[in-house]
C-alpha cells in the first residue's frame, strides 16, 4: 500500500512538474480581453459534467424500486426488460446480490458493472439518455434509474437510496479494472502502439 501510494505521488509529481512549465509560460502572454464574463449562477445552469467523486452532482434521490417503473417506460424499448436481451447494449451482468466481477470480455463493456465509478452512469444517463429525448429525465428519475441498474447488477440493494452523497460511495466491482488505475500524462515511456 505504502509503495503504491508513493509510486502514485511520484507520478503525480512528475505530471505536475511537466504541466507547470507551459502554464507558467502561458501566464506571461498578453490578454485580448475577448469573451463575456460568466457568473456562478449562469454556470450552474449548464454545468452537469459530473466528476468521478461526484463533483457537481445535483440534489435529488431515487431507489431501484422507483427506477424499475421508469426503466420499463423509458429505457426497456432498447435495453430490454431488466437491462438484458434488448436490441442495444446489455446493461446488466450478474444478478441482484451477485455482482459480476469479470474478467470482462470486450463485448461485456456495455454493462454498468464494468464502469469504474457509479457516477459515470448518472452523468451519461442524465445528459445523453434516452436517445429520442436526451436530458428529459428529472434528477430524481436519473438517480432512480441508476439505482435500478446498480441493483440489477448486484451492486446495491433494492431499497438503497441513491443521492449526491451515497452514489459516489458505491463500490464498483471493476474499480481496479483499468491500467493505469489513474491515467497519467505524459504516458509511460512505451511505444505508442503499446
Amino acid at each position, binding site marked *: 500500500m505504502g509503495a503504491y501510494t508513493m509510486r502514485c505521488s511520484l507520478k503525480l509529481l512528475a505530471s505536475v512538474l511537466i504541466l507547470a512549465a507551459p502554464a507558467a509560460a502561458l501566464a506571461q502572454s498578453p490578454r485580448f480581453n475577448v469573451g463575456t*464574463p460568466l457568473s456562478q449562477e449562469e454556470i450552474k445552469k449548464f454545468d452537469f459534467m459530473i466528476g468521478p467523486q461526484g463533483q457537481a452532482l445535483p440534489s435529488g434521490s431515487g431507489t431501484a424500486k422507483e427506477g424499475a417503473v421508469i426503466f420499463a417506460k423509458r429505457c426497456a424499448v432498447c435495453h430490454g426488460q431488466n437491462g438484458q436481451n434488448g436490441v442495444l447494449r446489455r446493461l446488466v451482468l450478474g444478478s441482484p446480490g451477485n455482482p459480476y466481477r469479470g474478467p470482462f470480455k470486450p463485448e461485456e*463493456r456495455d454493462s454498468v458493472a464494468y464502469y469504474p465509478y457509479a457516477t459515470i452512469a448518472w452523468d451519461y444517463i442524465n445528459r445523453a439518455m434516452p436517445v429520442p429525448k*436526451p436530458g428529459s429525465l428529472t434528477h430524481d428519475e436519473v438517480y432512480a434509474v441508476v439505482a435500478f441498474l446498480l441493483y440489477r447488477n448486484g451492486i446495491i440493494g433494492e431499497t438503497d437510496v441513491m443521492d449526491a452523497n451515497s452514489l459516489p460511495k458505491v463500490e464498483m466491482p471493476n474499480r481496479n479494472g483499468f491500467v493505469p488505475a489513474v491515467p497519467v500524462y505524459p504516458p509511460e515511456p512505451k511505444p505508442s502502439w503499446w
Partner: protein
Amino acid sequence: MDSNGSGRRQFLKQAAALAGVAAGAGAGAEWAARGQSANPEVQKPEAEARDGHDHRELLRRGARFSVDHITYYTPLQDYVGIITPTSLHFVQYHASHFPDIDAQQHRLTIHGMVDRPLSFSIEDLKSLPSVSRIHFLECHANSSPMIHGAGNENMGLPVQYVHGMTSCSEWTGVPLSVLLNEVGLQPGASWLVSEGADPGKFSHTLPLGKALEDVLVAYGQNGEPLRVEQGYPIRLIVPGWEAPFSVKYLSHIKVVDEPYHTWNESMNHSIPRKDIGGKARWYHFQFGPKSIITRPSAGLRLARRGYVQITGIAWSGGGVVKKVDISTDGGQTWKEAKLQAPVLPRAHTRFTFDWAWDGEEAVLMSRCTDERGEVQPSRAELYKNWGISEAEMKKPARSIHNNMMQPWRVARDGSIYDAMFT
C-alpha cells in the same frame, strides 16, 4: 450573418454532406461493379454475424446508420494527395441525427478552475489570432481486425471500409492556449473536460499539457466553415491523438484537477486486454506510426504486367513520417518508398513506389517509421504485444488503436485480396 444566410449555409452544408455520402456510395458501387457483387459469398451470413453489421447494406450506401451511430468512410481507394475533400471526411457520430445549431446563438464557455469564467461567441473566437494547420484525424476503432474478411471471405471489403476512418484536412481556428490565457488557469488545474452540443452531449477528458501545446478550437476546414457533420460551428482538433478527443459541436470546457473518466472513455472507448490481466488500458493518447497502401488494394485489379505505381498514405501521432518501406513479397524484403511533399507532422503523408509486376503472385505491404524511430508493427508483433496466443492469431479480434501492417495479395490474374488473415 443574418438568420436567412445562416439557414442557407446550413442547407448548402447538408447538401454537400449528402453529396459526400453519394460519392462514398459510388466508390462502393464501383468496387461492386468489378464483378464481385454477384458473388454469393458477399451475402454469407457468418461474415455478418461476426461483427453484427450488414455489409451488403454498407456496400450499397457507403455509410452506416443506426439508432446511435452515423458512420461515413473516406474512399481511400480513390484518395489522391493528402487533403481529404471535406465531403468525403470520415464521420463516426454517436447519435441518430446531427444537431441543428444556430451559430449566432452558440457559445463556448470555459469555466472550472479558472480566474475569469468566460463565454465566447463564434465572432469572439474569429476575432482572435487564427492559425491553419494540416492534421489527420483517425477514429480509434479504425482498421479493427473484426472487419477483415467480412463481406467476402476471400477478397475482403475495399480499403474504404477497413481503413477509411482516417482523413486529413487543413483546420483553421484559434489555439486553445489563447483561450485558456483569457480565462486564466488556477494553480492545480491539470485536466479539461469538454462537452459537445450534440444530442448525446459527447464529452471527453484532455490533459492540460496537450491542450496548451497544439490543440485548436477550429471553425474552418479546408477553406470553408465546418460542415454540420464535422461539428459546425466549432470543434476541438487534438493533433495526432485518437479522434474522440476532438470533441465536435464544442460548447463547454471545464478546467479540473483530475481526469473525469466519462462514459466514452471509461466504457465505450476502452477494451479489456489479456496482456494486462484482462484489465483495460485507460486512455490511449496518440496514434503510433501507421501506413496503408491504398492503390492497388482489395477489390481492385491489376490490368497488365509491367509498371505499377504502388501508392498510399502514412501518418503518425508522434510527428513527422521519416520513411515508408514497401515489400512485395509479404515482408521478406523491403525497399524504401518516395515520400511526396509536403511531409507534415501529424498529417497524412503520401508515398509512392515504382514496381514492375511480373505476373506472379505477390503480397504488398507498407511499413511506416516516424521521426522518433518508432516502427509500425506487423500483425504478429502487435498481437504478441497484446497477449493474443498463436492459436487465436488467425482469428479477427475486436481491437482499438490498431496500427498493424496491412498485406494485400495480388493473384496471378491481377485481382487483389485482403491477406490479413489468410
